[in-house]
């Protein structure tokens, strides 16, 4: 009971330690639930494959896909494909977000710049990267540059919107408070706007990662011989259905793992943030 004492310094406040312990337990529990969800899907998939109710009997069983995955890892350098794709996505997201960061600040901070560029951003954001592939081939050829520029494009436009919406949602009271304490414009930016934007940067990174993985196959359509997108393409061309599944599952898993890692880093970097727990 905390209400028994009466001096001014005894107001109750949640204990940090207990809160964090609970959060960790909740996170572990969440992973457990997630695995359970995955198991459900695998079981359902197995039933569909065995009974053949959909897909004209062309749905491979999960164990067939697992064997195909093993074979590919062992004999046809799937690990290399995986690495190539991960590298492309990482470069695309890094470059895209690096450009999106200053642009996001500019759009959030200067209403006039925002008025000029916001419609353009929304215009380009709406274009599916696949639609741009012919143009990319014309201007950048069919090399690595072409593939990565598609990913940069996709992650830039995904990130920039999250960033400027987030940054412009900063409560102006903090800017006022900093100014009243004597902060210069630069100090308002570096000591208030920047730290307050860190959570939005993480959200932007996560959105950009998601979009980039989704765009990967499109990017690797551009005459790529390696990469998970290329694996799916070739498997499709040769009607190796289990191999198509292998590519799709690996892309999903990579996206999942990266998102999870980012979430963990984010939780550590923004310990100060209030989160609604449900």
């Amino acid at each position: 009971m905390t209400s028994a004492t009466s001096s001014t310094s005894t107001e109750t406040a949640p204990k940090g330690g207990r809160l964090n312990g609970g959060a960790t337990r909740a996170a572990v529990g969440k992973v457990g639930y997630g695995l359970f969800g995955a198991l459900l899907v695998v079981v359902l998939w197995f039933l569909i494959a065995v009974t053949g109710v959909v897909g004209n009997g062309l749905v491979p069983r999960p164990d067939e896909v697992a064997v195909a995955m093993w074979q590919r890892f062992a004999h046809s350098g799937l690990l290399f494909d995986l690495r190539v794709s991960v590298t492309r996505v990482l470069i695309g997201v890094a470059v895209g977000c690096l450009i999106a960061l200053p642009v996001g600040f500019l759009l959030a901070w200067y209403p006039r710049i925002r008025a000029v560029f916001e419609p353009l951003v929304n215009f380009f954001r709406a274009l599916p990267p696949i639609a741009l592939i012919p143009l990319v081939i014309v201007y950048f050829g069919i090399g690595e540059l072409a593939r990565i520029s598609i990913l940069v494009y996709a992650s830039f436009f995904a990130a920039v919107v999250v960033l400027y919406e987030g940054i412009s949602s900063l409560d102006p009271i903090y800017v006022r408070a900093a100014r009243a304490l004597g902060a210069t414009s630069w100090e308002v930016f570096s000591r208030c706007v920047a730290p307050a934007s860190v959570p939005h940067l993480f959200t932007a990174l996560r959105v950009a990662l998601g979009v980039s993985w989704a765009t990967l196959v499109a990017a690797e359509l551009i005459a790529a011989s390696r990469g998970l997108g290329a694996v799916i393409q070739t498997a499709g061309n040769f009607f190796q259905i289990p191999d198509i599944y292998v590519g799709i599952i690996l892309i999903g898993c990579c996206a999942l793992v990266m998102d999870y890692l980012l979430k963990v880093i984010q939780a550590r970097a923004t310990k100060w943030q209030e989160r609604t727990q449900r």
Partner: protein
Amino acid sequence: MTHENVIVFDDVVRQFKRGRDTLRVLDGCRFSIPRGEFVSVIGPSGCGKSTLLNLAAGFDQADRGRVLIEGETVRGPDARRGVVFQQYAIFPWLTVRQNIAFGLTLRASRRSKESREKVTEQYIDLMGLRGFEDSYPKELSGGMRQRVAIARAYATDPHVLLMDEPFAALDAQTREQMQELLHEIQLRERRSVMFITHSVEEAIFLSHRVVVLTNRPTRVREIVEIPIPMPRQADTRLTSEFVELRRHLEHLLREEATNTRRVA
């Protein structure tokens, strides 16, 4: 040169555009706050109390008239005026200690590391925040957050403190504790304070004098001296003198709340 009156509102007019109309909020406000005095401003809801404070803080500019602080016209916010907001406005990404030290670490403050640390630790103790100095604001109750905000404002040693209903969001009990704490600090530090509130009791308890504003368009209705000697204690609130002042001020407020003036 010492200025007898640290804050001067000289015939201040402020109006806002609202659609096609202009809404005149302040209509020639005129009062001043002497050095070292704690002055509260009360008035009916929406009469422009916070507008007055924003003008004094430099967040806003008067359409006519002048706001002088230590003889200088206010042109924008700066570190000579500390502001405490109703919504606390302490930085959620900084710990209690970092929040209190914020103003001291800005370029404008020019302090050595030692003096910075000394002042910060002193205010952590003074505000009863010891044990919470490394906590983030999300871990604090409303009363503690406001203590951090007050400490942050005092730490930069401003000549003038402007407080905009700082205790309005607190529960009644915490609120009284905070009033007593602020009173103690005021007796110790003798700053010039402009304190906006809608609580008559709070105004009387803390102040040397209380400025009562009229309804919109707002002028000064009356300036009431509070002759109750300081230091004041919790039971000061129960004395007949206190109750009498309270009756008078509440009467003025009620009259103003029902009285809509016309623009001349």
